[in-house]
């Protein structure tokens, strides 16, 4: 403001003093109060008495100001519940403190600052939480990778175990076939075959779990008698039904027919469903009905067990799930695997259930009817080199192939196979993939390099072998999985001799 008249200056001063609260304190050199002047008589601060020493808080302000060369202002100082601006004028000899009440302005600004600081603190907390979340996500990622590695290791282990189991089972099944041929009227070889099939389905369930639905394995359709299958299911669960005091019925609408599909997978499905029915049925009965029509096999597994709540029907197909209280038997994998297998075979599964009454599982699977003519197996001629590190398998297939008229050279190692191959004129080599001293696929490549017209058949007990055929290279006629159906083996060997 430019220079104004004395009259205007007085007017402004009077107006200011009317609106604002001021206290002016005059001090001597000993910081004693000489005088106290108030702009309005209704505003006062306690402790400001003429002749007394300044209170600590104000004395402290005065000390701070004494180091400054100019008049000083201390804004927003809390004094007896008020907020004041304190102006210090003068020097150590005599000073004036001008105290200006700014409580109203302080309150307004304080509200804004409180809000700003609270927002800022919330933002910091938000950022800290985000940072923590990022760390947790990183840890989650690492743990997921660890879990995936562990899962892959588990799959490799189960596949390896599956291979270990399959070879002896194949051996038992093969010898049971031989026994059956020798003793056609005996039931004992049949029991042996049935138990072997059961064991094989259990191994396959393990392998399915290892695959975890990730691998689309090839199906292995073979011809088989539906009567044999229904009889086996009946015989397999008869003892269980007797032990639990349950009725058990296995019926087929058509007898004496031969069908074609993956018998092993079909047995897995049946054993899983019927086992499940017995597990959840304490009284009444379990029944299995087969019906064949329009190249489809319809199976109905019904029980009078405790049934399933509608809300739980989808859950029973989840891995490791056992619906209902007190149910602790079984791994909770059977139905999960069953549904996967049915889907893979192009079939359908439906479930109907009523709590307290029972459940009904209906399966429909493509399964063409084939002529009931025994496959013609005319004698073959030629020499086959069969390589497997399981001596029982070697002995078994030596008998089988010799019955077909073939000369069979057997080797139980890569080294022996190479040696014998050089000494005999073998047109066909059948080799297991996993050998104690090497790999059967690599062995065949080696032999093929020596004799380019040799044909190979690769065999493995492991189910995870889709890649084996792709990587086997030229000259490999086919891949077969243990246990090998005799009719299929004959067909493939005959084709290999015929040049593919």
């Amino acid at each position: 403001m430019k220079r104004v008249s004395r009259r205007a200056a007085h007017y402004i001063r009077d107006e200011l003093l009317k609106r604002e609260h001021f206290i002016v304190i005059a001090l001597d050199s000993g910081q004693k109060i000489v005088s106290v002047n108030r702009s309005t008589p209704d505003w006062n601060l306690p402790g400001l008495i003429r002749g007394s020493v300044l209170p600590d808080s104000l004395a402290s302000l005065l000390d701070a100001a004494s180091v400054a060369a100019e008049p000083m202002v201390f804004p927003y100082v809390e004094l007896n519940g008020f907020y004041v601006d304190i102006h210090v004028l003068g020097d150590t000899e005599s000073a004036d403190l001008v105290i200006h009440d700014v409580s109203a302005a302080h309150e307004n600004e304080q509200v804004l600052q409180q809000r700003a600081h609270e927002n800022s603190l919330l933002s910091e907390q938000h950022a800290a939480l985000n940072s923590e979340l990022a760390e947790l996500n990183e840890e989650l990622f690492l743990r997921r990778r660890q879990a995936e590695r562990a899962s892959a290791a588990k799959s490799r282990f189960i596949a390896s175990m599956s291979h270990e189991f399959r070879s002896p089972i194949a051996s038992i099944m093969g010898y049971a076939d031989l026994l059956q041929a020798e003793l056609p009227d005996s039931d004992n070889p049949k029991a042996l075959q049935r138990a072997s099939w059961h064991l094989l389905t259990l191994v396959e369930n393990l392998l399915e779990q290892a695959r975890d639905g990730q691998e689309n394995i090839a199906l292995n359709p073979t011809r088989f008698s539906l009567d044999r299958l229904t009889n086996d299911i009946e015989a397999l669960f008869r003892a269980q039904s007797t032990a639990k005091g349950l009725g058990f019925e296995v019926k087929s609408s058509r007898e004496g027919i031969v069908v074609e599909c993956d018998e092993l997978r079909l047995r897995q499905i049946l054993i899983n469903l019927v086992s499940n029915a017995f597990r959840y049925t304490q009284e009444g009965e379990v029944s299995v009905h087969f019906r064949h029509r329009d190249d489809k096999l319809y199976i109905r597994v019904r029980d009078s067990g405790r049934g399933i709540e509608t809300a739980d029907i989808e859950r029973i197909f989840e891995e490791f799930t056992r619906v209902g209280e007190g149910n602790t038997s079984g791994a909770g994998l059977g139905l999960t695997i069953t549904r996967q297998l049915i889907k893979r075979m192009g079939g359908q599964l439906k479930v109907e259930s009523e709590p307290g009454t029972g459940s009904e599982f209906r399966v429909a699977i493509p399964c063409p009817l084939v002529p009931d003519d025994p496959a013609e197996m005319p004698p073959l001629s030629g020499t086959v080199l069969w390589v497997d590190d399981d001596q029982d398998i070697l002995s078994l297939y030596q008998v089988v192939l010799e019955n077909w008229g073939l000369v069979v050279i057997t080797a139980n190692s890569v080294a022996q196979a190479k040696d014998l191959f050089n000494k005999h004129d073998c047109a066909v080599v059948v080799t297991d993939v996993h050998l104690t001293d090497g790999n059967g696929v690599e062995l065949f490549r080696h032999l093929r390099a020596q004799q380019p017209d040799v044909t190979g058949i690769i065999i493995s007990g492991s189910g995870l072998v889709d890649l084996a055929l792709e990587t086997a290279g030229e000259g490999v006629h086919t891949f077969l999985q243990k246990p090998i159906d005799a009719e299929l083996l004959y067909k493939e060997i005959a084709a290999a001799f015929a040049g593919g």
Partner: protein
Amino acid sequence: MKSAKVCMVGAFGVGKTSLVRRFVHQQFDERYHTTLGVKIDTRIVETSNEPVKLVLWDMEGADPFETDKRPLTRIQSYLKGAHAFILVTDGTRPATVKTALGLYHDFCRNHQYIPAIMLANKADLTAEWRFDDSVLPDTINLYQTSALDGQNVEEAFMALGEILAAL
């Protein structure tokens, strides 16, 4: 009796007011009230040499990212004539160490060296503790305090009283 102006400085929300309230009045308030301006409180401490009157200037918190520079100007006016600093930080907010040290170093650069201690407050929140004292100079002693339960509060102020009595 020796009287010393002690400035409580640091970022907002670290607990400066709560520490003074705990030390002078043995009280604690859960609610957060930001300080605008300055509150002056006193307490006499008995040191091994002589009693020292601590005149505690509990001033508003600094915000290094604030575009409005008036709070910083106010803080700088309050710091004049200080005899010691209490640098208050929040153990759960690592950035508050830098704010408190920044205020102290600015003062020493423009005025004179004065003693200081650092209080890492909110020691009761151990699960969220993220305090890094690696940037702390050797000349500044660190105390982990909690205004909420009083942990180390008395000890820290007494230690500063001893330093001031010895000057």
